[in-house]
């Protein structure tokens, strides 16, 4: 019998703590684990280090964390969706590490696969802050950035389907960061549109193996 990882609201909230590094999957309003973001807000934890593609819609996505004033540091590729972000940033409410999108996802992957970093050249010679913050190395005559890993205490992941063990599938382009973040946290918590029994998801179609998942938010009555 595979472990039943269905977890209640209170069990999930018990995993959150002040100062935690939190990954939130999704891209703009697509594939964001909105109900899990609700639980972070409900928990009242603060000083969150937030890693997500963007600063989020302020009404329905992880942008709500900014609105609540609980973010202390953040890694994003884009912050233009959230009209509050600029004002809060000006007030020095948090430290922003703006990161090119393809670089951000590889930094997260490094955190998941136990790598010490990856060599990329996105942003090379732009003389931007992004470039200045990075060490460079020359390998085989070419110059590369050393992109260091990002790892989280907790990752919030949105899936289309999850079995109770945490085998996951996605739909369309709601996968985005979710399968990568699922690998890169001490505690990966999943919100799924459909929750099902094992073997209901044909094994060859699974995108995130359940070994990476710690909890599945039990939002539906599961008949097993």
């Amino acid at each position: 019998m595979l472990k039943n990882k269905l977890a209640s609201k209170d069990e999930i909230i018990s995993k959150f703590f002040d100062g935690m590094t939190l990954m939130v999957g999704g891209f703009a309003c697509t594939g964001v684990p909105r109900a899990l973001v609700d639980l972070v807000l409900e928990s009242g934890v603060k000083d969150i280090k937030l890693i997500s593609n963007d600063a989020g819609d302020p009404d329905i996505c992880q942008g709500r964390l900014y609105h609540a004033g609980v973010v202390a540091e953040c890694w994003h590729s884009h912050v233009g969706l959230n009209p509050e972000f600029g004002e809060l940033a000006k007030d020095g409410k948090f430290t922003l590490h703006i990161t090119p999108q393809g670089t951000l996802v590889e930094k997260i992957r490094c955190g998941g696969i136990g790598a010490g970093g990856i060599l990329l050249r996105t942003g090379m010679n732009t003389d931007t802050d992004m470039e200045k913050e990075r060490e460079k190395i020359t390998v085989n005559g070419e110059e590369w950035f050393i992109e260091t890993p990002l790892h989280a205490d907790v990752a919030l992941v949105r899936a289309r389907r999850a079995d109770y063990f945490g085998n996951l599938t996605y739909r369309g382009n709601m996968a985005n960061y979710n399968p990568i973040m699922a690998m890169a946290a001490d505690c990966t918590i999943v919100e799924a549109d459909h929750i099902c029994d094992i073997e209901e998801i044909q094994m060859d179609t699974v995108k995130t193996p359940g070994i990476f998942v710690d909890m599945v938010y039990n939002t539906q009555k599961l008949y097993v």
Partner: protein
Amino acid sequence: MEMSHGSGQTLNDKNAMASRIARFFQPGDAVNLGIGAPLLVADYMDPDVLVHTENGCLGVGKNTSRTDPTVSPNMSLESFANAGGMPFFPIPGAMVFDHATSYAIIRGGKLKGTVLGAFEVSETGDLANWFMPGNFAGMGGAMDLCMSKMVIVQTTHCTKKGAPKLIHKCTLPLTCKGLLTHVVTERAVFEFIDHKLVLKEIREGYDLDNIKNNTEADFTVADDLKTDVVY
């Protein structure tokens, strides 16, 4: 400015640029179109050019809307939305994938081209398009997309105040250094050849003097310059 189009239609400048850029691509090519005006390129391309959206789809089809009564009420729209948040229908055989794979496609050289907007373009192929004082959004995927084979800027020739956008050297933070391959404005088409700006086409209704007077960047004129080009 509205110009007469080959088909007898008139196109506003945005659509005209999109129409010209569309002709760079062949059936089977994979192309990323930036948020905003570059998305219009899709309306003019051969339908067999594959459109990539960096948030996880290659084979973006017709746009739809959240109120279209022919699609399901919300979930399928959340599942298929382009980088600008616009819902779309995937084409038959469309590919969907996670973000790591999406950027493997980009950095791995599988895109024939990318079309980006610009605040500033330098005469050596630098682009600034993600940071302006008072307009800070972040680079998103733009720095990565500049590693495509063809990096095409789609921009008005001048700012709203009439200042040239093609300049000697960018003053804003860069998106890429020397990686641009083409610039298409509502007046002309330029190509970067060995990091030097070359004027290749002048659109009908404009002449070389107009281009010279509105371009700060140094450029040379191609031996095979085409004039009176219909976008």
